[in-house]
């Protein structure tokens, strides 16, 4: 690696994970990947390829059964707010108001009420949810409540974001809107992002780099750099470069996995 290469934030070296059971399930196998500072990386792969497993290892909820994961040079042992993790399932706290949700991580840090409020004020404004500060999450759409979860993690100012299919459960239209929302938020607050998805277009639209994983046990099949200029307006989705790249990705996916065979 040359000295002017970007600093590596997160590195997975030869990582494998096997779920115990009868028979044991091999979710990941000898996976090596590194993520640079402030890079937006999409982990793309078929359902059940171990994307979520890898993200839970990054988040510190699982310890790899093989290999090692390093964050800023030190090996990951256990969860930390420094690696802001947004779960795949809806995990917004329904008994807290939108503001209390946004402030929870700051409360955990022991921050006083006043500075907490300043942070949540700004995030509410960024999300356009100032009118909903006292509302309970049940009053939000599922798309917006997911964005609150992302913002709740951003509030603690972590060094990176780990997002597990945040928009997987949304309809196509809402999903596109939330992708724009996330892109906008990311422009404001540049962070290292690892974004798990099985949606090729979503990966292309959001990421700087796409890491394609094979079917289980997951390992890195191929990587694509997405050199589309930012910010990416709606037209990006219809640009010839976008389509060309999309085709390339589909070809790789279709070649490897029976799951996607015939869908390119």
């Amino acid at each position, binding site marked *: 690696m040359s000295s002017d290469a970007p600093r590596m934030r997160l590195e997975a070296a030869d990582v494998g994970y096997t779920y115990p059971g009868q028979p044991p399930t091999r979710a990941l196998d000898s996976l090596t990947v590194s993520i640079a500072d402030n890079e937006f990386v999409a982990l793309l792969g078929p359902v059940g390829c171990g994307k979520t497993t890898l993200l839970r290892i990054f988040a510190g909820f699982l310890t790899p059964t093989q290999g090692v994961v390093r964050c800023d040079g030190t090996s990951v042992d256990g969860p930390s707010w420094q690696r802001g993790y947004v779960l795949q399932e809806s995990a917004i*706290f329904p008994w807290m108001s939108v503001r209390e949700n946004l402030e929870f991580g700051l409360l955990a840090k022991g921050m006083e009420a006043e500075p907490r409020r300043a942070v949540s004020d700004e995030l509410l404004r960024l999300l356009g949810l100032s009118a909903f500060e006292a509302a309970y999450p049940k009053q939000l759409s599922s798309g917006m409540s997911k964005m609150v979860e992302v913002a709740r993690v951003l509030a603690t100012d972590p060094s990176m974001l780990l997002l597990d299919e945040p928009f997987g459960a949304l309809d196509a239209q809402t999903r596109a809107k939330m992708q724009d929302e996330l892109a906008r938020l990311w422009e404001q607050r540049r962070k290292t992002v690892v974004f798990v998805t099985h949606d090729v277009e979503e990966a292309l639209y959001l990421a700087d780099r796409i890491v394609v994983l094979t079917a289980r046990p997951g390992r890195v099949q191929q990587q694509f750099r997405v050199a589309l200029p930012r910010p990416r307006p709606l037209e990006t989705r219809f640009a010839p470069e976008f389509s060309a790249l999309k085709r390339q990705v589909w070809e790789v996916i279709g070649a490897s996995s029976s799951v996607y065979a015939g869908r390119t």
Partner: protein
Amino acid sequence: MSLVQRNRIKRALLSLGAIAVVYGIAAEIGRWVLPHRIWMDVHYIDNVELLPTYQSLAEELAFLIQSWILPSSILVSTGRILAGFLLGSVAGIVVGLATGRAARLEYVADPWTTLLRFTPALALLPLYVIWFGYGEASKILLIATSVAVVAMLGAHQAVRGVPQVYLDAARALGASPRLIFRKIVLPAAFPQIFASLRVALALAWVTIVVAELIDAKMPSLGYLLALAGAYPRVPQMLIGLATIGTLVFLSDMLALSLHAKVTRWMRRTG
């Protein structure tokens, strides 16, 4: 008051009204048709009204209120319910939260909770009389016991049922176990704990009527019923039953409206 509650009251009043009309007619007919002399144990009793008319019920109610018998009985029995309920629910919730949180405690507590859950608290009555005496303490502790068992099971299961995703999300945000317990486990478990308290409150009323048969003294609703049976005075029995029924209904309504207030965050269906 929510729409659900208002509908519930409306339906309850309708049903009560219909039954009241039917009863009134039956009682008037019964005055002519039913026997006024019944065989009880070893002798006959005269001037018995098997189905008291509204007039005799009204006279009896007026007597019970004017003599201060009914109001004082209500106050005394309600006081016992409150004392036993508070004691039992606090103890039950504390133990249930602890066993719900700590796997090792559950290991110890599990066979005991299974055993207790199927033991009617009233079966403990003779034991309690020996242990705690023939008086107030036994009655209150008996109510506390039946409340505690229900509350403990409710709290235990509520804590176990807190979705893992909330615990994971809180941990990922850097929350300490203490903060997670206070801000995640407790509020997430709260609706189910409250639901079990509602059941326990109704059960407390069942327990008190029998518990008041030990050291039976006026004033108390349980003894009021027992006395009415001994004499026998059917109007007094019916008024006693209606009083207990009304109190159970009112306390349940109170619990329900509190429940709605403290769980505003929940998604409501219907």
